[in-house]
């Protein structure tokens, strides 16, 4: 009996250990970001927003935040447009060509960031393109495109291609079929894919490190600040990064759910 009970208790224990392993480091950073003292010792002395104030008034941090937002938004928009075209293109090419095209589209997902960064740097240098936030955004599109496609493809594959024929039968030209049927049925997933690209770009480090000009982004600022000295502002800055990522994650999850619910409705009817 006692053996049984202890067995029953142990999964809870394992779970606690695993969760602690996953979340404790994050919790510590978040906790110290609200610390009133500048020493990184537990327990914290008191609650304060001074590090957030420091971050939001220091031009190093604010310009990095702005740069990261610009890059991530531009990257997300370009990826969404290109990725949507590619995803619909994939569903329309002949089944013999499709797998090969898909491999070409998805392959960059396997490339290490270091390699992508290095090769893109070489490419930009060869083409004599000055490094800037734009080169970063362009490089991030290369990086996020396959992820977007992966998300979009998983849903488009399950939408009945006969909807397109039906809309044509009811008089819709190909443009109207896209705007009145395909897009309304798929937009939540496309937006989710765009948000995913945003998040991936927002905290991307390796590729950015290679292809950025004189500016800096959030991950780069955190990295260089850590090299100089331990500045508690970093905790606040990292927590902001976490917040952006987390909120985007929630939005992505909700959108993916909406998309799935719509499809379920189709199947159940």
């Amino acid at each position, binding site marked *: 009996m006692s053996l049984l009970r202890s067995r029953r208790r142990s999964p809870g224990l394992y779970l606690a250990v695993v969760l602690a392993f996953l979340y404790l480091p994050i919790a510590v950073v978040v906790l110290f970001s609200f610390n009133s003292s500048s020493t990184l010792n537990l327990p914290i002395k008191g609650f304060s927003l001074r590090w957030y104030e420091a971050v939001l008034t220091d031009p190093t941090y604010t310009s990095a935040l702005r740069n990261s937002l610009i890059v991530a938004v531009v990257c997300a928009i370009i990826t969404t447009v290109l990725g949507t075209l590619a995803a619909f293109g994939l569903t329309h090419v002949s089944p013999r060509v499709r797998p090969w095209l898909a491999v070409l589209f998805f392959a960059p997902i396997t490339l290490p960031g270091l390699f992508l960064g290095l090769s893109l740097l070489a490419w930009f240098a060869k083409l004599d393109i000055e490094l800037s936030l734009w080169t970063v955004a362009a490089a991030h599109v290369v990086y996020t495109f396959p992820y977007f496609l992966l998300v979009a493809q998983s849903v488009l594959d399950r939408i009945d291609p006969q909807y397109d024929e*039906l809309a*044509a039968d009811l008089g819709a030209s190909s443009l109207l079929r896209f705007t009145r049927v395909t897009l*309304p049925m798929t937009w939540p997933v496309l937006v989710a894919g765009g948000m995913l690209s945003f998040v991936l770009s927002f905290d991307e480090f390796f590729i950015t490190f290679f292809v950025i000009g004189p500016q800096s982004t959030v991950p780069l600022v955190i990295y260089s600040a850590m090299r100089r000295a331990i500045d508690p502002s970093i905790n606040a800055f990292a927590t902001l990064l976490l917040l952006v990522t987390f909120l985007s994650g929630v939005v992505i999850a909700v959108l993916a759910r909406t998309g799935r619910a*719509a499809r379920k409705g189709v199947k159940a009817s």
Partner: protein
Amino acid sequence: MNTVLSLTGISKSFGKVPILHGVDLDVHEGEILSLLGPSGCGKTTILRIIGGFERPDRGRVVLAGKDITDVPPHRRPVNIVFQRYLLFPHLSVFDNVAFGLRIDKVGKRDIERRVREALELVGLEDLADRRATQLSGGQSQRISLARALVKRPQVLLLDEPLSALDQKVRISMQAELRRIHRETGTTFVYVTHDQQEAMSLSNRVVVMNAGRIEQIGTPADVYHRSATKFVSGFVGDANLVAVEALDSAGDGTEVKVVETGQRLRLRQTLPQREAVLVVRPELLRLSATGDDGLSGTISDIAFLGSAVQFHVDLDGMTLRVQEPAGAAPLTLGVGDVVRVVLPDHPVHVLTD
């Protein structure tokens, strides 16, 4: 009888697989024409060619005097109802039905009126505000019917529209389709593999096999006067009895059944010496006595509700005999020797 749609010499292959071999077909105004055949016979391809979703390799499609062979689907005055209802999940029932009218930029008032009419026609006017995802299968199919009919197509195409529904709903939907056809007067071209459905719905049935038309006729034509062995076997059940004429006298003929060697007297003359009798099981009767008809042994009995089906083994062939349940001789059992009696009137004969 006005021809509203005519196909001439339609051939189609998918890659190297031939699907249709020079099909000619006229659809009369206001009729329900069924394309009936086993899967892969090309019936759906014909429908898709009429709808404009496939281009024929050869042949022309003429609708109301206009050649529409090269017209894309969105510019054809025909509409289709698919087997999968495919209601737009992001739209309400009303907006689903209004979809085609909005594409055509019909005025708001007219849309409102025509959609209401269409919903009334299919008996679902109360569901206009529902989401398309909240309907049953039967309701969904009615809405997709309304969505197609609201555009007042010259020909309505139906691609196995009932086969996704369960048996009970299917039967009631057949009656619904007949009523809607009566009320609208629209020409229906109806694809199905279900011969019962084709017979009960259609004015004319086109029986197809392997990319060719085997027979076009009224349901009674294809059932009682099947043009080929395939038709007689696909439309209902039929005993095919090959016979050889021995001697004809007056209005009767003495024949030999090829497979069994038994002799049989027919109350008709045969068009040629060798022929195949097509005898529906319900036309045959069993008799325990006498020396009329053919002698055999009962090998199986199945109760079908309204009828009882007997399998009678003759030497070398089996005949299926269907007696009305009330009239079936209850004393007969498996193993009994009986005589299978042909009807008094002439039976249908094939000469190929």
